[in-house]
């Protein structure tokens, strides 16, 4: 029994309100659920565009394939880290999990800008075409972020802004991975800058809005 009568009154009241609860599934399981949605979108895009153009680009310029692998790895790790940070008591170090994938993604994309040959079936995107990429990434990142925030609201993210930043990173990386299926442009400074801008917009919006939505606990 608690020594303080004030606490005992509250404990009695909370005990009277007690109902059985369904435990929150493990973070990896919740990550898998979110990734299944991303995979379903990827399957729909692959059915529409077909895998051949993407594979031809990767064969001609392997750095594009490495960048795509980095984006996918960042998606998985950032989503897992966000769901892990949604559970009280998990270490803040989870936030570093997406770092290796992000470094691979940025590094390979940067290397692509230094190449002197063009990947087959591509061109260098002009500013107008780069805007299409930005719109694609932001458009897909919004519903993916909303879904993850909705899933996280059942958890208890005690570091809401950090968790929201990871939500933004996971959603933007997932959108960039999806873009790879129908991306007809080679890596170039304009393309890289567009992707960086889209990533910044998605992460910034999540930090500002997602942080508030997740801070109700």
């Amino acid at each position: 029994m608690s020594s303080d009568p004030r606490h005992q009154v509250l404990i009695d009241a909370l005990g009277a309100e007690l109902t059985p609860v369904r435990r929150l599934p493990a973070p990896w399981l919740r990550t898998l659920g979110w990734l299944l949605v991303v995979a379903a979108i990827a399957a729909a895009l692959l059915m529409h565009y077909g895998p051949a153009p993407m594979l031809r680009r990767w064969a001609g310029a392997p750095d594009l394939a490495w960048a795509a692998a980095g984006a996918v790895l960042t998606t998985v790790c950032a989503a897992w880290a966000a769901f892990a940070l949604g559970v009280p008591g998990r270490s803040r170090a989870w936030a570093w999990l997406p770092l290796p994938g992000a470094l691979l993604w940025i590094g390979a994309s940067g290397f692509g800008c230094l190449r002197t040959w063009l990947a087959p079936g591509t061109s260098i995107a002009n500013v107008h075409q780069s805007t299409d990429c930005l719109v694609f990434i932001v458009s897909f990142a919004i519903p993916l972020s909303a879904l993850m925030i909705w899933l996280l609201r059942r958890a208890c993210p005690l570091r809401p802004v950090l968790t929201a930043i990871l939500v933004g990173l996971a959603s933007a990386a997932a959108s960039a991975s999806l873009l790879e299926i129908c991306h007809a442009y080679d890596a170039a400074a304009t393309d890289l800058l567009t992707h960086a801008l889209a990533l910044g917009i998605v992460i910034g919006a999540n930090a500002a809005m997602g942080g508030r939505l997740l801070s109700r606990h």
Partner: protein
Amino acid sequence: MSLLTSDTGCVLYDGIAPPLDRRVHVSAENASDDASPERRRAAWMAAAQAGDRIAYERVLAGSVVLIRNVARNRGVPMDALDDVVQETLLTVHRVRHTYDPARSYDAWLAAIAGRRAIDMLRSHGRRQRRETHDEFALDQLAGRDDASAASERAQEASRLRAAIAGLPPGQREAVEQMGLKERSLAEAAAETGRNTGALKVNLHRALKALRGRLHGDS
């Protein structure tokens, strides 16, 4: 890893990775002699998730000292420690489904208590910044009958009335009875037919919600 069995029949794992031969069976009801206090709390919380009220009240009562220690270590003043305890107990109640019996209960609780302690310190800091401690401030204040002051008071009262009206019925009732009509807990309980514990929880939640609406405190 210790294997814990709640009295509701759940089989639970506690601890992270101790050897298999160190597994012990501890029921939530009798988790006393063999188990460490932390394992007992973990078993009780797991049983509470299944709806065991006795285990729940035990784990909450056993958590008070831990919460106070966490809050003290975070620098919460002595006179605010019990507020952190209350806020943490309410949060534990709200998010009890997030506890994973395969992990440490104490670490889970300490994370929540630490967060509530930080919230308390921030709220304390904001309040101190809003308050004026200048001894001449009183002399410089506008007169009580000043028209603008009266208008401001009327606006504040109107905001407060609107905020109270927007509360859920149980919370609104608690504020009306104990805040506005200044009735004691026992009188309010007699008037409303609710038990004193429920009234107190409702008042606590209502005040928190009003603070949030009027001052933007979380």
